[in-house]
């Protein structure tokens, strides 16, 4: 017979405490908030029933800022005080933003900026004062959190905010700052594709490898994850920050222009009408095979076959990125078990069909591709705050861009390669370049290229008070630590003295989406020229070391040389110095060789002299062990 439970008088049976935590998808165009209400996590709607909050803030002189649709409504009337796409400005300085404006896509930043601080956080002049992208993002987050608190009926104890996988350190930091500004406790920053996988993973309790195919309005991201017994492991990520749903609208627009004989469009109103016609046609093709277009007194028929033809290049680019991501993880296409679609643009049948063809199976579409990221973040928030059992699941994410340090010759030594699981700590030892060098300056960079100038500078700091030693004798251990939010800290330690310098990388600016794209692409295209540049850098370094070694040898043992020998060596040094600044790697190497040759006898004589001295003063095994 079953035993009855009897509770102590006065005590209540223990009821698990449900703590309020939400997931927030802070998007460039729209934002969403999701939470677990009963047993499922769902996105929360505002009073008027809409889930998507346009990521727009309108500032006015007297009233509180407007956020969302009401702000968007002000865009036409008061564009200077209506801020859209603030996410694109996060982690950047004014110069970065101006650079963005020069490229065709970022025509959105037409605001008045405070010009006094062009190399730090940008500030937009509005009637309500100066507003930074952090402040604007904070206003959006604030609106979402009050929506959540009124729907859920209580105070939020924590939030998970999603960020693009390619967000760099500065962009992540500022996302966190924005949340802190409105008093939100950030449990974790979560990569958007990972969040999407989480949204599907828990419900189906799957096992296997998953591709997250995220085609947004202006960017494209692919991630490969593996799921095993509730543990998500990100195997690799990749993307194209200049490819999005907008590009598909564009090919239809171009087609209409050509068919209707409109020529080049310069009128912005005509451009807007064309764009609307293109978008309408694209949407209709989601459910129909043929659509009629009426535009500017022109009528035409547009069908799916034509759309497939026009968008073939764009579709190919998405598939190529998938191929690369799969290859990065050393996985083959047939090992992929599931494909998750994210972003409204993935509703296009051309995309769904290309994906199905490449992977040999259809993508999952049960969850609304606009909401899937927020839902995943909501699930993760629920787990982190402790509502779900710890054993339920775990996320093992990766860092999307390589992190390294500048070494001599302006080369990058990668310390943490991209696609390494985080958190991660890696250390590498470096040494001094000159005799008696007491300061070492460290330059932390992010990117895939071999030359410092092609990567993004994250931070610089110095290690001082290194005890004077001969070049190459000091041992400096540089340690990189990336935490689970993808944030980096670096420290350097001189091993003999234990002197330490460290820095939390918090740069005042970050990478623009275009810059990341450019860096990734050029790292592939330029692998070869990088090698040449690297070879030149190394040749220069070798030359410099030889020149310095010989110069200091002459200082000590110059007496071993006759006048002619001395002149020969000096000329060779001069020649090499010249080649070092002007010449290519081959010339530098040849002249280094030449200097080696003319100084060979000198080196031999010195060696004999010093071995003689050493033999008299020291035991044999010291010499043996120092000569191997």
């Amino acid at each position: 017979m079953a035993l009855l439970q009897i509770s102590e008088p006065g005590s209540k049976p223990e009821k698990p405490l449900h703590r309020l935590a939400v997931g927030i998808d802070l998007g460039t165009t729209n934002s969403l908030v999701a939470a677990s209400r009963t047993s499922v996590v769902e996105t929360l709607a505002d009073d008027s029933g809409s889930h998507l909050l346009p990521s727009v803030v309108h500032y006015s002189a007297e009233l509180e800022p407007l956020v969302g649709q009401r702000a968007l409504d002000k865009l036409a009337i008061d564009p200077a005080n209506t801020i859209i796409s603030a996410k694109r400005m996060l982690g950047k300085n004014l110069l970065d933003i101006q650079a963005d404006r020069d490229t065709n896509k970022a025509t959105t930043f037409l605001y008045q900026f405070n010009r006094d601080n062009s190399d730090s956080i940008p500030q937009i002049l509005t009637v309500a004062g100066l507003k930074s992208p952090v402040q604007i993002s904070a206003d959006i987050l604030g609106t979402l959190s009050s929506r959540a608190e009124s729907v859920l009926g209580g105070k939020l104890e924590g939030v998970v905010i999603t960020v693009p996988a390619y967000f760099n350190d500065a962009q992540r930091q500022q996302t966190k700052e924005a949340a802190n500004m409105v008093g939100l406790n950030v449990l974790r920053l979560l990569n958007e594709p990972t969040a999407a996988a989480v949204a599907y993973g828990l419900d189906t309790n799957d096992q296997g490898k998953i591709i997250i195919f995220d085609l947004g309005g202006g960017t494209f991201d692919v991630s490969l994850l593996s799921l095993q017994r509730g543990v998500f492991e990100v195997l690799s990520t990749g993307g194209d920050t200049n490819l999005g749903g907008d590009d598909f609208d564009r090919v239809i627009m171009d087609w209409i222009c050509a068919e209707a004989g409109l020529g080049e469009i310069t009128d912005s109103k005509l451009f807007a009408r064309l764009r609307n016609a293109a978008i309408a046609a694209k949407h209709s093709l989601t459910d129909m095979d043929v659509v009629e277009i009426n535009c500017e007194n022109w009528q035409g028929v547009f069908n799916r076959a034509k759309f497939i033809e026009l968008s073939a290049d764009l579709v190919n680019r998405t598939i190529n990125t998938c191929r690369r991501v799969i290859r990065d993880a050393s996985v083959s296409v047939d090992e992929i078990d599931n494909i998750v679609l994210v972003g409204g643009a993935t509703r296009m049948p051309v995309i769904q069909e290309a994906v199905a063809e490449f992977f040999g199976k259809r993508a999952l579409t049960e969850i609304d591709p606009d909401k899937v990221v927020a839902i995943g973040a909501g699930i993760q928030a629920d787990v982190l705050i402790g509502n779900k059992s710890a054993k339920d699941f775990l996320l093992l994410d990766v860092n999307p861009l390589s992190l390294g340090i500048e070494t001599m010759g302006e080369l990058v030594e990668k310390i943490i390669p991209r696609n390494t699981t985080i958190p991660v700590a890696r250390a590498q030892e470096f040494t001094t370049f000159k005799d008696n060098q007491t300061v070492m300056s460290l330059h932390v960079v992010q990117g895939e290229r071999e030359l410092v100038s092609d990567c993004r500078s994250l931070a610089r700091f110095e290690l001082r008070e290194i005890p004077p030693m001969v070049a190459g004798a000091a041992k400096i251990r540089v340690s990189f630590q990336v935490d689970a939010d993808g944030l980096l800290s670096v420290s350097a330690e001189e091993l003999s003295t234990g002197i330490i310098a460290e820095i939390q990388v918090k740069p005042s600016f970050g990478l623009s989406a275009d810059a990341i794209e450019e860096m990734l692409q050029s790292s592939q295209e330029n692998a070869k020229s990088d090698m040449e540049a690297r070879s030149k850098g190394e040749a220069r370094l070798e030359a410099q070391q030889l020149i310095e070694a010989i110069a200091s040898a002459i200082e000590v043992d110059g007496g071993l040389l006759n006048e002619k020998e001395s002149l020969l060596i000096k000329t060779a040094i001069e020649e090499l110095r010249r080649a070092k600044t002007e010449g290519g790697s081959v010339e530098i190497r040849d002249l280094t060789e030449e200097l080696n040759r003319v100084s060979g006898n000198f080196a031999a004589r010195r060696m004999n002299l010093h071995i003689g001295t050493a033999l008299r003063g020291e035991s044999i095994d010291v010499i043996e062990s120092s000569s191997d």
Partner: protein
Amino acid sequence: MQTINKNYFQLFSIPEIYQLDIGLLGENYRGMQVEMHPDRFVNAPEEEKMRSVQRSSALNQAYDTLKDPLKRAGYMLELQGLNVEQVSQHDLGIDLLMEQMNLRESLDKLPKNESALNALNRLKKEVLEKLNSREESFSNMFMDSELATAKKIFHEMQFLQKLLIEINQGEEQRLGY
């Protein structure tokens, strides 16, 4: 900084052999991350959070080393006190250099367009087969405590691995991405 007194094999409670059970390694790794990952310490005091970041990082480092056949081989040699950074002339036999030269020549000779893709694929297969057979002999030599030979095979594997990376790059260039 956190130090782990166990070696990576002991850390994951798996036998200290080269041809290990990758499935078991992954399972144990994930099981330990479930306990140690910073996500489990979100509401913990700062000090515990930091300890979790260090432990979780160390686990990642260990897993990263053991799951990769080349890194695993190097690590096992290091555990035996060998310095794998140091390559002596003795480690590189003339037969290895000849083999490398032949493979590289066949790689360089290939046309720089898509027509080379099939040939690249064949070359890749060949290198992979060589790599597999080296892995097997490494395992045998290591078990027989023939460490010098094992080290020599390890360096051969390094060469082959590098070649494989170049073949992959060649493939990517020809595919245009």
